């Protein structure tokens, strides 16, 4: 018991702190309308002191976008509006916002607009800031190339319909060239580039550049500086299979993968051994799955055998 006391009732910082608490509480409980009502007042924080502004700029942007996702009457122009305004508010978040905005445009199917946005982002320079945000810049490059690939795919799709395809072929090739230039650069950086790798290989295969494709895939799978990624080996395996490689070679790839992976798996599973399997492989779930989702059960069963021998 005890009555909560706020000693000084009227204060900008106090008001805005409570406002943020209310927003957070509402969002946690999915009360989007309520959160939006408080969001009418929170943007004042941008006009506060310099520190308040800097601390809140990204937060306000993210909250606004998240709320837009959940409000029934939000429109694309609301998203674009907010993205544009927040982008030009400060150099530190320019690239981040550009990237997120392009993602949203992609989700809405506006590929061209997304690509244009990323192209603008690519050419953006701001002294030291460009250096410190180079990671985001790389992502922007990568996604722009991905969009090039998407457009390439679209054009490929139209190929079979017309007789005179030379124009389309030229278009396609220019997109391919743009994409490949950047992607080659991107792949030099350690990271998980699965969708990009797959897209690039597809294009290379179309143009019969098998040497390049193999090189890319091998580098991706076997380069130690890259984070361990089982998919890399899968891609290599699938490619080799497509190319009709010998079984011996295939199994060699898999074996390497398996050897590698046994170590890595046991490393990660060990600390979780006592609770993770119990959490995921209960008899209740098994019963439910056998009724509702037999496919899942088929997948889970062998895994369960591995993790919980004897159950």
């Amino acid at each position: 018991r005890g009555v909560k006391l706020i000693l000084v009732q009227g204060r900008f910082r106090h008001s805005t702190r409570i406002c943020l608490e209310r927003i957070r509480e509402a969002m946690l409980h999915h009360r989007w309308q309520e959160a939006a009502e408080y969001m009418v007042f929170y943007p004042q924080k941008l006009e506060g002191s310099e520190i308040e502004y800097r601390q809140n700029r990204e937060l306000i942007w993210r909250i606004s976008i998240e709320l837009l996702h959940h409000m029934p009457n939000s429109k694309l122009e609301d998203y674009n509006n907010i993205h544009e305004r927040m982008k030009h508010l400060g150099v530190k978040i320019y690239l981040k916002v550009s990237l997120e905005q392009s993602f949203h445009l992609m989700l809405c199917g506006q590929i061209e607009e997304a690509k244009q946005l990323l192209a603008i982002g690519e050419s953006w320079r701001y002294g030291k800031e460009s250096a410190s945000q180079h990671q985001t810049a790389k992502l922007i490059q990568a996604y722009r190339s991905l969009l090039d690939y998407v457009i390439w795919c679209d054009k490929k799709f139209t190929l079979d319909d017309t007789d005179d395809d030379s124009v389309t072929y030229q278009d396609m090739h220019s997109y391919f060239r743009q994409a490949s230039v950047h992607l080659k650069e991107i792949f030099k950086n350690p990271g998980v580039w699965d969708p990009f790798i797959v897209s690039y290989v597809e294009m290379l295969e179309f143009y019969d550049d098998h040497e390049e494709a193999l090189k890319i895939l091998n580098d991706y799978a076997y380069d130690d500086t890259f984070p361990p990624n089982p998919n890399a080996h899968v891609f290599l395996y699938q490619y080799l299979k497509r190319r009709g490689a010998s079984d011996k070679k295939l199994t060699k790839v898999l074996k390497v993968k398996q050897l590698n992976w046994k170590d890595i798996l046991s490393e990660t599973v060990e600390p979780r051994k006592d609770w993770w399997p119990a959490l995921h492989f209960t008899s209740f779930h098994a019963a439910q799955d056998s009724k509702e989702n037999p496919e899942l059960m088929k997948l889970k069963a062998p895994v369960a055998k591995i993790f919980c021998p004897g159950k």
Partner: protein
Amino acid sequence: MDDEYTSGFKEPCAQCCAVDWGLTDEGRFYCRSCHNVIERTKEVEDSNFNPGSSRVSTISSKKRKLKQERGRQWMVCEGFQFILMDQADALVKLGVSKHFKDEVLHQLWMLYLHRSQQAYTNTPIRSCTARPQTSDSDSAADLSVVSGSETDSEMFPPSRASSVTSNADNSDASLYASSVDGSTYRNQRGGTSHLMTMKKTLVLLHLGLVWARQGLTLSDLLRLVNEGHVPYVNTFQAFPEEMKLSGSDSVIFKVLKVPPYEQVHKETENLIGFLQLPAFPPISRQSLLHPASLCLRYLMEVNLPDDLYPWVCELMKFAQLDDVLQNRYDPFLHRKFPHYDVQAVAIIIVTMKFIFGLNDHVEWESSTRASQSPHSGRTFNLRRWYRLLQGAVLRAQRRRDNDAARKQWIPEKLLSSNRQAENVAMKRKRVSNELQSCFRKLTSGPSGPSGPSDGPVQPPSIFQFFWGDMDGADGPSLHRQNLDLLVTQVGGILKPTNEQYWHPALRDCSSCHDGGHYSEAEPTLPRMFVWTLQLFAFVLDLTPALIYREVLRVERRVLGTRTPQSRKHTKFLNVRLERARARLGAEMRARARLGAETRARMEAETKARVRLGAETKAKEGMTVTPQGQRKRKKKAPDGL
């Protein structure tokens, strides 16, 4: 300088045949060579016009277009005068008497300007032009309280004309019109303690209200400010068009917080000293500021039974706090300016201690007995009261927080002093406005905005809680319950059943500033007592320490100063107050005879209070609150 007005007029002067016309302050054309005044007048459109002074109008600047952009020249004091009048108007609209605004506040402001003049005689630019806002013909008579104010108007030197214009022209940000002395207002010689600030507007209002013996206490005033019924945050936005502000003014006029109770109180004391006010008008028994009236009001506020009121009055009398003449505040005799609201609450708490005990034992035992008695529905039960209040306060605190979260602090107008700062601020303002309007649009459904607007969120009312059976009430009313089992009749005398009274050391400690050493004492105090302090602290919106200090002060008056054996710890003494009780008993007997009269008086006072609340609600037309908020039907509790 006057050429723009007189250039069109090319008639030669009748006396000297020169064509050289100027303008007198009355707007008449006069010949510059021979000072012959003719009938022709220019249209008086500038509000700097002041009949009676001998100054030549200074408004004419070089370019008329520039003048319109820059507005007219105005002093910081003018700005504050505007704000003060705005605030006073709001208070009058809420029910305060006009006498407060037209006479009391007016005179206090004059007095303040007069006194602060004397600090800056060597810099004429600093002089404030004290122009009465009201066009009352009585304004001259009103100045009688302020000594020598007629001569003071001559003190406002006319020489400011040229120096002021050049000052404004030379300013770097000549495109940013501002008050004349805004940038230098705070750096004046003679110290800054008597400069006008936004906080001081509240101080002046409070002073005026007390002087005019209005029932609006300091905690009421601050609550009204927080709720937005009295302009305070961003009042400068309502300045007339010609008074333009810039960055340097923002420091003076922009507020990001409402000052807490104790700060305003302290400044009131300072201001009283600065103004050298005489003894205040006495507070009569009938006035709303008298402890008896305030106590009644607070008793109603926290849903305590009316039967407690006679006991409260007795205690007041015993402590000599209701004596009109003795308690008349005189700055020369009394060092401390009284906290009228806190004092009333302290009296109630001491009465509660007498009747209920509040030592974590007695009150619960009597509650248990009350609930087991055959007439438990009509008997006041502290446990039930506690539960009601606790719930109500938690809900009210949540509401208060929600309102605080929805407060619009940042002004629409942009105040900036240079281009770069303005650009940055403008960009951020645009983004903020964009986001705000986006969400406003998204949250306003077909049922109308379910969120609150930026205006005042609660209808103005003296009371924060509503007790009764109506919709949206905080709980059932306990006002009509009796104090059976808490008071017993012994030989024709009514006495409190509880025979113990505890209190901490009552020695007046001069070393402590916030008094009472509350933070040290608090862990040793009974929880119920602490809760009661916190309850009233919430109602008044200040710290419990303040109330604790006042409670000790009242106890000192009732019980005398007692020093405990141990200096270090507070002790709970069981004091048999035969003397106090006997006296109370005797008075109660007399009161029982006059019981009907008392009740009638109480009813009348309550009705007046409720009328004030209802009237203000009616004036604001707030019988139906916006959707999503509590609905309060306009209803006066029927007679009690």
